[in-house]
């Protein structure tokens, strides 16, 4: 009977020791995971702070970014630019015709997701109208560069009180590819 009690005690002791060994590894494992997670959370918190700063900077710069974007022709807005130029020409009283529309791809522009929208515009009207159109073309709300202008005096119709000028304008407008 006494021996049974001793065996029971030894068995209990071994059982508890086993629980301790299991507990030790479980604790060690959990502590390691905890440390890893803690490190990740700390790094994440830092990143989150940086993201918050980045977002704040982005919000501050948004107006400027929008302004920069507004001077570039968005993808798919080519037609509205052509119509804008046609309307400007018609607005000053010119007869206008778009001779050609091309997309010029230069490596340096392509690398920056940009290209040139090249328009060849033909106009007909008085000197004042052609001259006003030139001014408005240069003051377009897009980043543009006039590459070629040809203004030719035309006196075909002698009965007309005002002499006519035929104009060819080749304009490059910076456009976004995407």
């Amino acid at each position, binding site marked *: 009977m006494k021996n049974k009690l*001793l065996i029971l*005690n030894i068995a209990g002791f071994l059982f508890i020791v086993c629980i301790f060994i299991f507990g030790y590894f479980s604790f060690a494992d959990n*502590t390691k995971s905890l440390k890893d997670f803690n490190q*990740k959370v700390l790094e994440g918190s830092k990143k989150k702070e940086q993201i918050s700063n980045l977002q704040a900077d982005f919000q501050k710069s948004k107006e400027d*970014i929008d302004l*920069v974007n507004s001077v570039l022709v968005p993808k798919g807005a080519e037609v509205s630019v052509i119509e804008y130029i046609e309307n400007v020409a018609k607005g000053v009283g010119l007869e206008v015709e778009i001779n050609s529309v091309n997309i010029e791809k230069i490596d340096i522009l392509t690398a920056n*997701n940009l290209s040139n929208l090249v328009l060849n515009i033909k106009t007909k009207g008085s000197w004042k109208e052609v001259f006003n159109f030139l001014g408005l073309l240069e003051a377009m709300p897009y*980043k543009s560069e006039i590459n070629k*202008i*040809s203004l030719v005096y035309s006196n075909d119709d002698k009965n007309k009180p005002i002499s006519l000028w035929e104009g060819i304008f080749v304009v490059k407008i910076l456009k976004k590819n995407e």
Partner: protein
Amino acid sequence: MFNVLTEDLREDLKKKYKSRFLTLLFSICNFILLVVLASLIPSYFILKAEKVNLQIQVEELDKNEILDNVLNIKKVFKETNNYLNFLSANTDKPYIYDFVADISNIKNPSIQIKDIMFNRINATSSIVSIQGVALNREALVSFVKNIENQKKLKIDVPVSNFAKDKNIDFSFDIKTNI
């Protein structure tokens, strides 16, 4: 009394004592270990709960939408910077409109301009070709000199322009920084 016992009984008694002693020792050990184990149980569950809590936080931080947001902001900043490089180039270039206006103002009634051509050579230089009819040589010389003086330019007028003395058809090129 112990000495009175026979050798066998003595040995038997010793064994019993040993057995009782070991039983007591293991009982005490078991008791202590159980108390320690019981005291560690709350820590174990706290550790587990903390691990789960941190795991949730890590998952929250690893969410793709935060990363996507950052990548998107970085992309916008990078793109805008690239665009700014293009937009800031040659921003203080003179307008063709102003140049043509100046020519138009310099021109006197004895000069009739029939053709104005503008051709861009590169980003900072261009050639403006002017053709027309001058009443006489003096008018043409005066017109060219006035342009040279006002625009601070040197214009080479082909001598062939001075072949006739009246109603001279002239043409010359002006190299500009437009």
